[in-house]
């Protein structure tokens, strides 16, 4: 029999709980400080913006790309090199629409100077609506001439279409997207390079905000649902421990994500929720054994029973954590950049989830027991 933990092992987990509860409290506070001072490095799912995944046929340095991207007028460019060869990059910018308000203003003035102020009824551009603007004229204009005029004045327009009512003369100008602009800029600035856009993610600012809210809600709901389930299936005394240890795992993981500036996106959120599921799984296994031992050893104190139970489950906790860790590290190595945050959260989360089941969830049920006993005693004494 191959045994990681020899039977009869008896570590005094409960005896050290003051130390670990304090340690965890410190970490939770530190995480909160990290979170509030630095915030999370939101991926575009949550922040809004545009992310472009490019591949070149020859190496280009990060600096070269940064210069080009910033020259094109995009801010907060985050450039991630993929692989060792400097041929593949993910570029993230804060903009959703390919032109800025100032550029829109320039176009408006151009149109006014060309068509005359009295002929243009309305010019509408909104950064939230993406790569297009609307012009309303007082009379019909030639679509192809309008397009030519715009292109000759360096407006990257893909198409011009008439829309709306027949009695009104409204035209829709569709502009080239950010990805196309950056692709063109790189081809222009770097001689003889072939650029291939292999993926584009663009999320409008409103959507980003909505996703952030719904993501937070998802995490909160799942926390509440799990706690209710534990309270219902086990005992009222166990639920707070489960809740606090889940909160502990979630907060510390997010704190670490904030500290190491790993991109937090939808997949990261999925990982956090999976982690909550995993962590409660671990807690339940320990609780279950405590419940069983409560019946088995009627004369022993809860502290002793917790100690026995945790020791009995120690081998299992370690083995299961190891298998999950194995898989998480495989994902970290082979999963690519899309899964990086996910794998990291799982890797880190498994360790912290196992730790919290032993050092946080169990002692808290002990505290609650003591608390209840104290009040019972007091009411008897009266």
């Amino acid at each position: 029999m191959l045994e990681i933990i020899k039977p009869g092992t008896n570590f005094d987990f409960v005896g050290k709980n003051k130390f670990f509860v304090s340690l965890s409290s410190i970490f939770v506070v530190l995480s909160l400080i990290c979170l509030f001072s630095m915030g999370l490095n939101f991926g575009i799912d949550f922040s809004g913006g545009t992310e472009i995944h490019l591949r070149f046929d020859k190496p280009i340095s990060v600096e070269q790309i940064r210069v080009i991207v910033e020259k094109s007028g995009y801010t907060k460019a985050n450039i991630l090199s993929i692989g060792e060869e400097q041929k593949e990059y993910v570029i993230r910018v804060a903009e959703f629409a390919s032109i800025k308000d100032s550029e829109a203003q320039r176009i408006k003035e151009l149109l006014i100077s060309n068509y005359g102020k009295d002929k243009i009824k309305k010019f509408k551009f909104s950064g939230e609506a993406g790569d297009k603007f609307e012009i309303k004229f007082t009379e019909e204009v030639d679509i192809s001439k309008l397009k030519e005029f715009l292109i000759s004045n360096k407006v990257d327009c893909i198409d011009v279409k008439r829309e709306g009512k027949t009695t009104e003369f409204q035209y829709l100008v569709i502009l080239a997207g950010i990805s196309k602009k950056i692709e063109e800029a790189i081809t222009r600035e770097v001689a003889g390079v072939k650029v291939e856009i292999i993926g584009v993610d663009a999320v409008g600012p409103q959507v980003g905000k909505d996703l952030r809210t719904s993501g937070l809600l998802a995490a909160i709901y799942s926390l509440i649902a799990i706690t209710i389930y534990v309270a219902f299936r086990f005992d009222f005394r166990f639920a707070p421990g489960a809740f606090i240890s889940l909160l502990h795992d979630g907060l510390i993981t997010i704190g670490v994500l904030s500290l190491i500036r790993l991109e937090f996106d939808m997949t990261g959120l999925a990982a956090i929720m999976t982690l909550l599921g995993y962590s409660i799984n671990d807690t339940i296994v320990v609780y279950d054994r405590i419940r069983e031992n409560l019946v088995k050893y009627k004369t022993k104190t809860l502290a002793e029973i917790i100690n026995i139970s945790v020791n009995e489950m120690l081998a299992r906790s370690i083995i299961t954590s190891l298998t999950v860790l194995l898989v998480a590290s495989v994902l970290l190595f082979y999963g690519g950049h899309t899964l990086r945050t996910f794998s990291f959260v799982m890797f880190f989360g498994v360790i912290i989830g196992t730790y919290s089941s032993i050092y946080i969830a169990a002692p808290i049920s002990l505290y609650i027991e003591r608390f209840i006993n104290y009040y019972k005693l007091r009411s008897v004494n009266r």
Partner: protein
Amino acid sequence: MEKSWWYKFWFTICVIILSFAYLIPTFMGDKTPEWYKKLNDRRIRLGLDLQGGMHLVLGVDIDKAISDKADSFATDLESILKEKGIEFNKIERVDDSYQIKISFKSHEHAVSFEEKVIKEYPQFTIVNRGGNDIIIDFNDEYVANLKMTAIDQAMKTLTNRVDEFGVAERSIAKKGDNAILVQLPGLTDPERAKGLLGQTAQLEFKLVEDTVDLFSQYKDNLPEGITFDRAIYEGKDGQPVTEHYLVSKDKEKLLNFIKGVDTKGYQIVLGKEQRELETYYRTYVVQKKTPLTGEFITRTDVLIDHEENRPYVGLSFDVQGAKIFEKLTGDNVGRRMAIVLDNFVDSAPVIKEKISGGNARITLGAMKSYEELLEEANDLAIVLRSGALPAPVEILEERTVGPTLGKDSIDKGIKSIVIGTLLVLLFMMIYYKLSGLIADFALVLNLFLILAIMAFFEATLTLPGMAGLVLTLAMAVDANVLINERIREEVRAGKTPKAAIEVGYGKVFWTIFDANLTTLISAIILFQFGTGPIRGFAVTVTIGIIASMFTAIVVTRLVMDRIYHSHKIEKISI
């Protein structure tokens, strides 16, 4: 062995066979034999992140559409009032509402407005009278109705446009209250798609020129897949009218061919035709000019003719539209009028008589059941309304994955699954020996079962889904670890293998159940809130949890019971 063991045994065998049967189309792909496809062609779908393609979320700006409508009515009012001799100083829309404020020259004019004009517009109510001013507003019912149907209309428009790309397996779905999710797998020209989908719908009424024959001259040298056809319908005074048109199943082909046809000053537009459950595309020859557009429509409803018990579509025009419509129908009784949405003929009913008063009725084809008619009437009403309420759509979110990136992701996903699974298998085998091997068998079966269930539901596999899959396997091992550790404890306590197995499985069941259920809760909540790839993840995890309960508890027990069924066996390899 006991009877119950045999039941479970045969049940497991059935599950294994079914799993393989369901996985054949997924693994063989296009090489699946035809006869098998007929039997079962369900397979796992690849998410856009793996397959490549485009994912768009379009927001429908309903508010803007309704205020536009108020604006245009305000403009119309000016001419209506002038015509009726009602004098006013100013007509304007009240900011941040749909209300229209009219300042009349005198109180008498205001009264005659109330008496003569506003009664003709049931969609308005008077919300305020003060001196010479009147404020009118759309009534709540009208606004609610507009809001409710605006998304349906936008969806219909988008569906038409998306079909232009000829993308197989496209999907268009409502998302929340005012957004639409469009998924176009395999689409390679995102810029074009964005341009097309971001436009506002255009509804036109055009006269069909059925007597004009543009196509018989090409009849003998049509490309393959396009056929020439004639049809006869009852025109004016019951006279038969013969129409000549082209039909094809392939829309692109038909469009390409039409480009070369001499239109003789007419215009050719396409429409759909149902033939024995299959959709064909056909041509219509229409007049180039557009006498009437959807902007004049004020409302459309699906109504029932109680005498004939047949559903039909009723529509109303505003004053200006009613006039044009009256003349149009009066001049062209017996001819057909094509209802064209975004350059695509939705239907082409025959004009039966001159229609005045601005209320028209469109009756539908005769040879159909009540339900079919009702559905058709609903569809048509949506189309007509999209002309009445052109709600602007805006791109809120765009995700494009190129085919190379998709392939990369598949490679990464498969590599992770294979290596991850192998490591877990190896670990279990070393640590628990024979019992580990049994758990491994269950784990591999679990993997197949998960994939088979996904194939059965035609679920979507994404890259996060693949990660979820390996992770589920790693967590599924937990059940066997729990069982095996428990059996070890019981053996140490001096029980025989058979008894230890009995106790081990029995005591651990509820632990495993509770632990899995909480994970399930997280996964289901995630599914509710997540988008695309994350939903794929949630689906994989959910299926994984259910499948792993079966394999880890039932299947391993089956094997264990078989090996240690006799009390004589004293040693257990664990």
